[in-house]
């Protein structure tokens, strides 16, 4: 999220600020997710959750190019998007634990976090389920002339859902300010995407009239640059775009998916974790550019960890909703 920019700062100072902000946000997602896994393992979290670890650069790079008022829609693997768009960690954890203080009063859980204050239209447990909503938000933004843009995050598995093409077609016809952001982590649950995806993804987008670009989803600066370009273009009224961010989820499809050998090699995971970790790659860059050093990283880590820990404690201690809340909020 872009915070208010001091007018006298130089470009490079702004860039440095942005970098550290993005670094911190990526780390925040990482620690958030590690704690989710921990809460699951300790049987404190009901149900399951889908970790975003390994993909942090995408949400952070994209949301850095959005304003607070801009919209996003998210997926079952949505914590990263929420955090990147500015959600408060305590209320997120509370939601994951089904507590009254959660973003959805405990009614939504991990897969449905939504927050009007940060333009988060909601995570969605239907694969491809938010494509319509995202396009509709862009439609409203255009009609209301409020200058907002919407980013629709989805996994490459959603390429299997026909509704995605239906709405991309309308977005192109009506030049709506929406970016379709495909996070290709190469797996639909336990099936490699090459078994489910024929042809070429960007050609698909082109077929529906959307310009597109493939980006290295592990490189937050590359993500930011591409996102910024297409978001600005959309905001300027030039229509939608399709971004294909190539990435990898470092852990299971969900927290319970621990024996993964039957669908992907340990070696593959190892390679990504050791060579393609977006946070690691970015810290190396920051050091090389003299934008940060280990001491700074340690400081950020301590701050973020303290914030995450506080948030977990808050959520664990928070009360459940009373059962009589169950039939509230069915109708507005």
């Amino acid at each position, binding site marked *: 999220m872009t915070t208010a920019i001091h007018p006298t700062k130089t470009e490079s100072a702004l860039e440095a600020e942005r970098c550290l902000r993005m670094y911190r946000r990526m780390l925040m997602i990482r620690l958030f997710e590690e704690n989710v896994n921990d809460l699951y393992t300790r049987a404190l979290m009901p149900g399951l959750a889908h970790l975003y670890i390994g993909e942090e650069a995408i949400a952070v790079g994209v949301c850095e190019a959005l304003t607070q008022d801009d919209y996003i829609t998210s997926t079952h693997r949505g914590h990263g998007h929420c955090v990147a768009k500015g959600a408060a960690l305590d209320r997120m954890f509370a939601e994951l634990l089904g507590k009254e203080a959660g973003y*959805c009063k405990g009614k939504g859980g991990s897969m449905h976090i939504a927050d009007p204050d940060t333009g988060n239209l909601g995570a*969605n447990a*239907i694969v491809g389920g938010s494509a319509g909503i995202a*396009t*509709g938000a862009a439609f409203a933004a255009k009609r209301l002339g409020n200058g907002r843009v919407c980013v629709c995050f989805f996994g490459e598995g959603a390429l299997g859902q026909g*509704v995605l093409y239906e*709405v991309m077609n309308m977005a192109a016809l009506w030049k709506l300010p929406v970016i379709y952001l495909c996070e290709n982590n190469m797996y639909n649950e336990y099936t490699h995407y090459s078994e489910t995806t024929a042809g070429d993804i960007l050609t698909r987008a082109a077929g529906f009239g959307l310009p597109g670009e493939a980006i290295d989803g592990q490189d937050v600066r590359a993500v930011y640059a591409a996102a910024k370009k297409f978001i600005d273009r959309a905001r300027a009224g030039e229509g939608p775009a399709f971004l294909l961010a190539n990435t990898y989820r470092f852990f299971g499809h969900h927290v319970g998916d621990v024996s993964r050998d039957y669908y992907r090699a340990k070696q593959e995971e190892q390679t990504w974790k050791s060579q393609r970790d977006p946070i690691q790659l970015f810290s190396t860059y920051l050091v090389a550019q003299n934008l940060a050093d280990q001491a700074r990283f340690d400081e950020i880590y301590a701050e973020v960890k303290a914030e995450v820990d506080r948030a977990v404690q808050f959520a664990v201690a928070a009360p459940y909703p009373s059962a009589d809340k169950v039939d509230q909020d069915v*109708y507005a």
Partner: protein
Amino acid sequence: MPETITATREITLGEAVREALAEEMRRDSRVFVMGEDVAQAGTAFKVLSGMVDEFGSDRVLDTPISEAGFTGIAVGAAMTGMRPVVDIMFGDFVGLTMDQMVNQAAKVHYMSGGKWKVPMVMRATLGATRRSAAQHSQSLHAWFCHIPGLKVVLPSTPYDAKGLLKSAIRDENPVVFYEDKMMFRFKGPVPAEEYTIPLGVADIKREGSDITIVATSSMVHVALSAAKLLEEEDISAEVIDPRTLWPLDEKTLIDSAKKTSRVIVMDEGYGRYGAAAEIAAVIAEGAFFDLEAPVKRLCAMHVPIPFSPPLEDATVPTEKTVFEAARALLGGK
């Protein structure tokens, strides 16, 4: 009691729908209509003829043939400040929209803990006997009635259609609004003055004391014709139109059943696992100690709607079926 309509002005059900839409669009710039061939063509049934001329193609918007897609767009637009009305040409196509309506529109408010809301209307058609065969003749409203978070409206007169559609558009929730495709040219009195009808209030279309006929949409008129036939036999039939199936005005239905002690439920959807099953169950429970005969359902025959006229005609209840069912329930009174 039947609402007293003072106006002498008569318009068709199609015109009533158009008036309601136009008035709400004038009143609230966030309201817009989208669907296939709604603009210059004014829909396949010509219900919206001329609207694009007044409101422009930004607010009366032709879509591709993408029912799921534009319904999804309506959900998102409704969440973010618009009040969309989507047009589903034939109610048979709602199958394409079920995921958007049920997993998204109906649940967004609840799942977000009451934060987002989805003030949208889906207009769809129902009804058979148009010789349009199995994929263009269904009345599938029971599916939506089953889903918490949705409201479902089935008007039977121009007056009701106008007043209820205006309320549906102003409602903060997703509302499915059904129009019988054979009734667009059906005329009735509609006041020139502005009015709305609240969702959730049944209307007694005809008072009576011997038997209650609960009927929806076009079946209201079949019931009224049957009531006339019954009158000739000195049987006094009360005809009640729930008008909205959710919220359902259970009290009015049960009170009437208690009064008459005999009930027929009519609906153009399939009876089995259909809207009439709910109404029958509600009455059988609520008026249990007053009923003198089992509640009888008269609905579409449980077959895909056939094309051939003599076959299709056999699938829909007629005034004769109702007349006979009523006499049977009254034990030949």
